[in-house]
Structures are given as structure tokens and as C-alpha cells.
């Protein structure tokens, strides 16, 4: 109905010449931003609370601008991960590759609620975060393909990408959690009103060092939001088989917690704003459990269907996909149109293709790079290679 109206409108405005053009072109050319509303309010799921009287709001306002930005960002991550899948199967990406598709609402929602001056650390399923924290798709893909144009010059790989106020990308399950509390300690020490978001998965949630960290963060009131991305499986082990209590938002015991619908970006955003406010006010840490889902297996070597059914994966895709959820909300509330979002899809695809092109043609790092970055601010020295006759210079 809308299409017909717009088409009619455009023909009137543009005169007889417009009639010859294909319909879609006409619609695009005549799209008028006055047709879209500037913002809409949505009901969002109430969060389960632990040791809290009140939780995050149950409604959220989404502006058109925000919506388009979230959509583009999530779609970029989605396509970037799918491209990585492709490159891995072509053996252009090697080693470990843990993909994030399905979980986009988490990283985009979190970023929407914090400032670039806040800090974030996560584990190895980190490509989405590398992107939201400021690394370009080009640099991410080139890091995956091990080229010198990668964000870590090809020396880190999938699990070790870093950016300003983004501390990776950590390979040892759970180790990033004490690190995150340490970053929060620095935030408090420097007194600049910054916080640290410290992420871990449902698998890592059973690590002892996390409980040690809960204790110290609460004792010292560190401005740390502990965030458990619960995607229901720790590698091939379902949460029921790994944890005596799967209420991850309660596992911090004396630390207040909220359980959030991690597939709804607005839920994630509002919950994170709520938690961030708590931390910034000096009340100490908070715990957020984001209930989310990964479409891929644990890593590229895991088909992901031996411990869960294809039906389950399909059900999540059709009923809870974070990008579809946002798209439907926007289209149904006049924040955007199917066509406009499709345009974004096209642009994103192009960006990913170009980035992949770069990532597959950029040269590998030069051999000299092998010895570098052992020490910081050290005069150049020699590094031993596989034999006493093979030496590399270490600079910077």
C-alpha cells in the first residue's frame, strides 16, 4: 500500500518522464525522510533480578538514527563472520576461529550503552567486539588471514585482537575476568569515571578465578560489570551438564545481578545503561547474564550439531534472530523501510567483499617481524631462531 502511494506521489512530483523508470528505482528516488518517524518506544522484556529492588526500564526509546546504526553494525558483524566462515573453509584462515553470528545484539547493545572511554575485555569469540570497539573489518579479516595489514600485524590471529580501551581477545578461558577487574581497579584509581565491561561465557562461569575476582571486586567496590554471555553451550557441553546452578546472574552471590534477553538489542542496551550507572555511582560491581545464541559451532572445527539439534538452531533463527527482531521493529513502526534496510545490506556486503579482497591479497608479515615486540622501550637486541645461527633482530 505504502509502495503504491509513494510511487504515485513520485510520478506526480517528477512528471511524465518518471513513468518509464522501474518501480524500485522510483521508490528510492522518491523516498522522503518525512515518511519515517524519528523515534518509537518499545516494550522490552523485564529482567530477572538478583539482590536488586529495581531493574532496568521495561520500555526503550529507539530513534531512527540509532536503529539504522545498530542495524548496520549488526549486519556488518553478521556478514563479516559469515565471510570468515567462507575463508576458513577455503583454508585461508587457519587455526582457531570462533564465530559470533547470532550474538550480535550483545556486542552492539553493550557498546550503545557505554562510552568509547570505557573499557571492555572479552574471551576468544571476539571479532564482534573488535569491530564495535573501533577496529575496521579490513583489519579484522586481514588479522584472521595472517597478513601484515591485520590489526595485530598478523601476529595475534583470531583470538588476539586489541584496540583502544579493548583488551582482546583472550585465549585462556576465564583468565580475562581478573584482568577486567584489574582494568576496573585502574579506572577507580585514576578517578576518571570510567568502567570496565568484563565478559565471559557460560563455560567460563565455572572457573575458580572468576569467583576470586567477584570477591575482590565486591570488597574493593571496583567499577566492573561482569557479563556472562550465556549461549547455552560451553563448546559441546550444555549448561545443564556443566553447572549445578545455571542462574548465571546469581552466581556472583553478594553481587547484584540481572538476567537479560541477549537477542534483543534494546534489552541489552537498557540493562547495560542500568548496570553502568550502578558502577559509576561507586556502588561496586554488577553482574549481567545475557541469554544469547550462537549459530555456528564452538569453533570452525565444530559442526555444532552433535550436541544440539538442527531444529533448535532453526527455531532460534526464525523466532529470535537479533537482526530480524530489530528490522521488524523498525519497519513496523515507520523507523525505516524494507528497501532502506536492503540498501544497507548491499552497502555492507560491498564493504565486506572489499575487506576480504584486501585480506586475501595483502602480503604476510615480513620475516623480520618475527623477533619484534618482545619488550617495550628496549634498545634493539637479538632473538634466537630455531638454531644458534638463525638470529632475528628485536625492535620495538
Amino acid at each position, binding site marked *: 500500500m505504502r509502495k503504491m502511494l509513494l510511487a504515485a506521489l513520485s510520478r506526480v512530483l517528477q512528471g511524465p518522464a518518471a513513468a518509464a523508470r522501474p518501480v524500485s528505482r522510483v521508490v528510492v528516488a522518491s523516498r522522503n525522510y518525512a515518511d519515517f518517524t524519528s523515534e518509537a518506544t518499545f516494550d522490552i522484556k523485564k529482567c530477572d533480578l538478583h539482590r536488586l529492588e529495581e531493574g532496568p526500564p521495561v520500555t526503550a526509546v529507539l530513534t531512527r538514527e540509532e536503529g539504522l546504526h545498530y542495524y548496520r553494525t549488526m549486519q556488518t558483524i553478521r556478514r563479516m563472520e559469515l565471510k570468515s566462515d567462507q575463508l576458513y573453509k577455503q583454508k585461508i584462515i587457519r587455526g582457531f576461529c570462533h564465530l559470533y553470528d547470532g550474538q550480535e545484539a550483545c556486542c552492539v547493545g553493550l557498546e550503545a550503552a557505554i562510552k568509547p572511554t570505557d*573499557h571492555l*575485555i572479552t574471551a576468544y569469540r571476539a571479532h564482534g567486539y573488535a569491530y564495535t570497539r573501533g577496529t575496521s573489518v579490513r583489519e579484522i579479516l586481514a588479522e584472521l588471514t595472517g597478513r601484515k595489514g591485520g590489526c*595485530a*600485524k598478523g*601476529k*595475534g590471529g583470531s583470538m*588476539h585482537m*586489541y584496540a583502544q580501551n579493548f*583488551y*582482546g*581477545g*583472550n*585465549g*585462556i578461558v576465564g*583468565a580475562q*575476568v*581478573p*584482568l*577486567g*577487574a*584489574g*582494568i*576496573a*581497579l*585502574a*579506572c577507580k*584509581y*585514576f578517578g576518571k569515571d570510567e568502567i*570496565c565491561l568484563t565478559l565471559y561465557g557460560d563455560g567460563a562461569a565455572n572457573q*575458580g*578465578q572468576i569467583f*576470586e*575476582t567477584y*570477591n*575482590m571486586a565486591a*570488597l*574493593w567496590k571496583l567499577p566492573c560489570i561482569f557479563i556472562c554471555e550465556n549461549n547455552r553451550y560451553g563448546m559441546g557441553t550444555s549448561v545443564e551438564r556443566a553447572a549445578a546452578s545455571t542462574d548465571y546472574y546469581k552466581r556472583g552471590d553478594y553481587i547484584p545481578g540481572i538476567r537479560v534477553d541477549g537477542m534483543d538489542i534494546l534489552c541489552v542496551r537498557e540493562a547495560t545503561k542500568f548496570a553502568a550507572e550502578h558502577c559509576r555511582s561507586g556502588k561496586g560491581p554488577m553482574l549481567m547474564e545475557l541469554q544469547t545464541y550462537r549459530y555456528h559451532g564452538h569453533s570452525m572445527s565444530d559442526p555444532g550439531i552433535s550436541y544440539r539439534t538442527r531444529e533448535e538452531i532453526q527455531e532460534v533463527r526464525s523466532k529470535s534472530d537479533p537482526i530480524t527482531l530489530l528490522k521488524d521493529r523498525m519497519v513496523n513502526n515507520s523507523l525505516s523501510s524494507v528497501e532502506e534496510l536492503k540498501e544497507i545490506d548491499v552497502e555492507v556486503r560491498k564493504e565486506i567483499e572489499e575487506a576480504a579482497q584486501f585480506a586475501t591479497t595483502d602480503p604476510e608479515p615480513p620475516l623480520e617481524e618475527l623477533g*619484534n*615486540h*618482545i*619488550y*617495550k*622501550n*628496549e634498545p634493539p*637486541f637479538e*632473538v634466537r631462531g630455531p638454531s*644458534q645461527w638463525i638470529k632475528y633482530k628485536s625492535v*620495538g
Partner: protein
Amino acid sequence: MTVRDALNQALDEELERDEKVFLLGEEVAQYDGAYKISRGLWKKYGDKRIIDTPISEMGFTGIAVGAAMAGLRPICEFMTFNFSMQAIDQVINSAGKTLYMSAGMVPVPVVFRGPNGASAGVGAQHSQCFAAWYGHCPGLKVVSPWSSEDAKGLLKASVRDDNPVVMLENELMYGVPFEMSEEAQSKDFLVPIGKAKIERQGTHVTLVSHSRSVGHCLEAAAVLVKEGVECEVVNLRTIRPMDVESIEASVVKTNHLITVEGGWPQFGVGAEICARIMEGPAFNYLDAPAVRLTGADVPMPYAKVLEENCLPQVKDIIFAVKKTLNI
């Protein structure tokens, strides 16, 4: 000045010099330090700079490393390095490797310090030497002071270094007094990391050692000099990066090499020195195979007579020198 007081002075000076430096560990604040190394510091600097931690090595070590990544300069104390084993992942994987993995983007200026190696009658689980374990890993710096000057200068240098430094102290050395030179009393006295010191010049044999064993080497040298044998005693001071050049220069001069350490023999500091000497110019100057004196290849027993015989004693060094020189 005792080693303990030298360390205390170094901590005080570095805390005063740079706001970003702070100390955390078990009992470092209100207890004044399990071995009193941080005596008086909490009173002077307060809760923000001197932090008592719960008994959570893996947790607080990770916290120290994270704080360093975010721009602070923590000193993380292990009550003994035996407990660092619980946190070793944070020391090696988080602290040691991050600069490399990030291609230079994320430096980790943290110091891990505490007593290492054998003490007196503390049993097997509290007596292990970690010089070889940490010395094995690229990305870390590992220092091992012997004297008060070593302790003060190396601690100050470690705090000012932008890299993760493991400082292996020795509990039995804490109470030992040493002369402090004029230079060593200055607030900016630093001992360079990566440079060995010739504690005693000699011509007949090179004794290379680190930490407490340096003292034993000097004692052995004092006895041997009466028999006309002049030992050159090299105090490594740094395990990684090791100053092989100083050892080589000494071996070229004396033609005989003996390494002395408290740690276990297999894959130890002495083993590394011997391998490196073989690869370099000094090999051609050896008149006898290089010799290693190490801790006995057993977990440390408790009974005094057993414990004593599990570490290289002065008599063992003298015996080894005579054997090497064939006298």
C-alpha cells in the same frame, strides 16, 4: 644495610616517585609484609597504594596484570614464588605474551616479586626455585638479586621497566647486611637489567651463580685462594635476558666454568649456560667440560641434615673447582 631494608627503601622511593606505582599482595599492608619487606609503607601511603589481598593468587595476579594493561604500574607480591604456580597462567600468558600478540599495542609494566627457592626447614612445597620456569619464557624479564645493592637497584629498575619483570628474591638473604656504596644510596640508583657483575676477579676458574649461591661462591673462593687458586665469581643478577657475553669473556680468561644454583638440575639455569657456552666462542677456550652445581634432584626434605645436603654447599664448590682444575 640489609637486603630487607634495601628492598623497603626501593619500594618507598618508587612509590614516591610515581603515582601510578602501587603494591598488592597478601599481608603487604597492615601486617607490614609477611617478611616485613613493606614495613611502614601502608602507614605512609594508605589503602589506595598498598593493598592487602585475600588468598587468591590467580585472581589478584590477573588483577595486577589488568591494572598494568590499563596504565598503572603494579608491584604484585607473592608471599613465596611457590604460590605463583597457582597464578602462573596470568604471569606467562597474560603478562608475558600480550605485547607480542598485540604487535606492540598493549604493554604490561608489572613487577612480580617475592622470595624464591629454598628457605630453612619449610619442606618440599615451599622450597622450589622458579628461575628456570620463568627464565624459559620470552616476553618476561627475570632478575635474581644477591646483595643489598642488587636488591635495591634491580627492584627500582624493574619498577621503571615497561615490561613484566619477575624478581626472585631469597628469604634467607633478607636479613643479611651489606655495605652500600655512595652511589647505591642515591634515589636514582639503578642496576641495569640484563647485565652480570663480576663480584671477584680471578684467573683460574669462572664460578657463575645467582642469588644466595653467589655468597657460597665467594666463600669458596676465599678458601681456595689460600691454595693459590683464584676464582672469578660472576653474579648473574639477571636470568633473562642472560648476560652470556660476560660469562664468555670470563671463560675465555680462565678456561674453566662452573655454574652454581639452588634450583633443580634438569633444564635449569646451569644447563642453559653450558649449552650457550658450547655454541659460542668460549667453547674453544675450555680446558675441561663445564660443570653444574645445583639443588639435588629431589623434592626438598625437612630434616636439617637432609636439607643441607640438597643444596650446593661451599665444600661442594671447592670440590668441583679442584676436580675441574685437576688438583
